[in-house]
């Protein structure tokens, strides 16, 4: 082999070529983008809501409604929209959530971005786009179409950012979601009945029930945390029993003025650890996948499952009417409802779209009262007018009631991983450490406090 002399001769050449390429690459990255100027807010009187009179328009829409009932509702609504407004042609591009998240960034930086996009609420998606001036504030349209009357503020705030993208949960409205979601407690009704237990009415009741179930030799809480994030929902549920809702909102939106280092948060962390110590969770949960865990629950392993309403359709398929759902009970039976929850991905309008009026008309069409009926009919949980939907008694009704109650009484608290761009990782890893006994509640909270404080201080 004579690779060596050749390599040593070509190496400097390669280095020189690379250096030239660097020089050719030229100006700073992102210099072709608008210089972060926030998109101007159209005034309410200037917007046009008469979609039929907007002339021939083509709207490019990027969504992630690719699965089951989600895909069905989107197709149905798009068809109805085309039939109603033949002058507006829809060019639909749909891709899975992961694909959308990774490609949207590039698509929005281009000169001809899509008109309507489904953007994840979090700071690294919607927040970053707002900061870069790529999304249009929708407040004028919200007023013109009356969105604020139909959507509770606890739901709308998940799509609100300050114009510079720094503050989350307040400021301009940048998107409108179709569906809602709330993290609650699924339970296996048949198993509860067999054990002679009523669904718990208070949080203390719930803990007693877990102990009883454990004593009877069943798995009290089905759980799989290999994917890191499922524990965030379980912890959020425990935390919102003891920590006041406004404090959670401040922490979760990454605003200044709260702290992880409080006795209440410590109590929540300790309670979670005590559940591990008492063996309430399924065995080997840190090594079990999320999908595998809810599928196991669907096969009758486990009596309770703390999870989001998005699992309803799949669990109902597996367990039929044996599946039950409730909001996590409060300290007392009549305590106001508080639960981690939010919305599906909101639909937003890009700042460079030449047809914002048509885009807004489209968003209104897929979120209006009729659309909510279509959503219900296709097995989705509509985010607005939830109480007005007619669904048969049973699991679906329980989910609708749960979300309707929580959103109407402004009892939804945000997902904790919204807090900072890195918080999903910090919290996910810290929870795995905590649940595996690698760290104690104090160290756990210190880790979270550090990430939160660093961000909140620098964010101003």
């Amino acid at each position, binding site marked *: *082999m*004579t*690779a*060596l002399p050749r*390599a040593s001769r070509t190496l400097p050449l390669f280095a020189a*070529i*690379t*250096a*030239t*390429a*660097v*020089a*050719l*690459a030229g100006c*700073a*990255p*992102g*210099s072709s*983008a608008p*210089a*972060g100027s926030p998109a101007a807010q159209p005034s309410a009187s200037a917007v046009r809501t008469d979609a039929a009179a907007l002339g021939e328009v083509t709207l490019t829409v990027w969504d992630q409604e690719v699965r089951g009932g989600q895909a069905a509702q989107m197709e149905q609504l798009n068809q109805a929209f085309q039939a109603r407004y033949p002058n507006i042609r829809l060019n639909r591009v749909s891709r899975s959530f992961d694909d959308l*998240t*990774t490609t949207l*960034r590039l698509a*929005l*930086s281009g000169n001809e971005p899509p008109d309507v996009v489904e953007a994840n609420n979090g700071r*690294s998606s919607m927040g*970053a*786009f707002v*900061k*870069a001036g*790529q999304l249009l504030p929708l407040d004028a349209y919200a007023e013109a179409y009356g969105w604020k009357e139909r959507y509770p503020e606890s739901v709308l705030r998940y799509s609100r950012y300050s114009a510079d993208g720094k503050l989350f949960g307040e400021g301009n409205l940048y998107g409108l979601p179709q569906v809602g979601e709330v993290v609650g407690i699924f339970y296996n009704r048949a198993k509860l009945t067999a054990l002679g237990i009523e669904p718990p009415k208070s949080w203390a009741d719930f803990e007693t029930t877990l102990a009883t179930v454990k004593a009877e030799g069943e798995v009290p809480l089905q759980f799989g*945390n*290999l*994917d*890191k994030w499922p524990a965030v929902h379980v912890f959020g549920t425990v935390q919102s029993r003891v920590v006041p809702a406004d404090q959670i909102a401040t922490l979760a939106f990454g605003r200044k003025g709260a702290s992880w280092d409080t006795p209440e948060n410590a109590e929540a962390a300790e309670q979670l650890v005590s559940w591990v110590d008492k063996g309430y969770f*399924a*065995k*080997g*949960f*840190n*090594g*079990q*996948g999320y999908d*595998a865990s809810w599928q*196991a629950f669907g096969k009758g392993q486990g009596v309770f499952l703390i999870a989001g309403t998005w699992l309803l359709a799949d669990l109902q398929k597996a367990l039929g009417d044996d599946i039950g759902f409730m909001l996590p009970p409060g300290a007392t039976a009549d305590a106001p409802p508080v639960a981690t929850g939010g919305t599906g991905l909101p639909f937003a309008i890009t700042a460079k779209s030449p047809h914002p009026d048509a885009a807004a008309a489209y968003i209104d069409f897929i979120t209006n009262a009729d659309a909510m009926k279509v959503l219900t009919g296709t097995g989705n949980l509509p985010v607005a007018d939830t109480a007005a939907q007619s669904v048969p008694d049973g699991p679906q009704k329980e989910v609708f009631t749960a979300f309707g109650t929580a959103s109407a009484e402004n009892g939804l608290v945000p997902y904790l991983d919204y807090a900072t*761009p*890195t918080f*999903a*990782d910090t919290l*996910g*890893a810290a929870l*795995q*450490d905590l649940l*595996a006994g*690698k760290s104690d509640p104090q160290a756990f909270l210190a880790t979270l406090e550090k990430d939160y404080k660093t961000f909140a201080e620098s964010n101003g």
Partner: protein
Amino acid sequence: MRPKSSRAAGPPGEPRRVAYLYLLPAFVIYAAFLLYPIGRAVQISLYDWDGLTLGTWAGLDNYVAVVTDEGLRAAFGHALVLIVFFSLVPVAIGLALAAVLHHAKVRGLGFFRTVVFLPQVIAMVVVAVAWRRVYAPDGSLNGLLSALGLDGLTRGWLGDYTFALPAVGVVGTWFETGLVTVLLLAGMSRIPQELYEAARLDGAGAVREFLAVTLPSVRAEIAVALTLTVIAALRTFDLVYVTTRGGPGDSTSVPSYEVYHRAFGLGQVGSAAAVGVTLTVVIFAISFGINRYADRRVT
């Protein structure tokens, strides 16, 4: 007769400048799709950039972070551990397996070669999904252990702080062993039979024969196998992405996963590029070292 002007530059058969012109089309493609992106990545790594707004000059900060950031250092450390599982163990197993297959002159060698090579044919994502099931708390590995009466050893392998990284590594061993074995088998088949006869006449046993004849003869193949598998180990992404996403905690995070995660998850494109460039340099250095070592020993 007047010589043609282009000939005047030198004697016939010597390289002429016009030859570079023939290289140009290939070079343009090479430059546009490889050199320019590399240059751009190096440039981005010197900026603090979120991928959307104007980047700010950061100098070598991103590279300093690669060295000082505990999480990133750990990620590179995990990649080095994976080299053991992706390269060293497969080469050891591959040598033994190939020597036995070669020595024994087994019937149906083609069949065994195919079977051993099979993991290479499967997409890594599929491999990862399958092994995730194997390692699950109710998976087949724990099932096997229970059946053997070793219930005390059962665990959620990918969620265990001690065993998650080795568990991921074992998948790599399983994946790479076939490739290494087939490479080494090909090398061994080229060894002249006379060498073995001579060794036997000198009274060498099977072990001695292996050490004195087989091993030195396949040094070049070992170098190739090491290069390929080390690169595979260092750039492991899909396996970690599908099995653990870097967990539990951060105990299986690897540089490639950090690149993806930082660029697309966190919007720290500058930092992601710095990790990527560092990884490229490390891969280049290690494979260069392996080849250099192999060459020196041959001559």
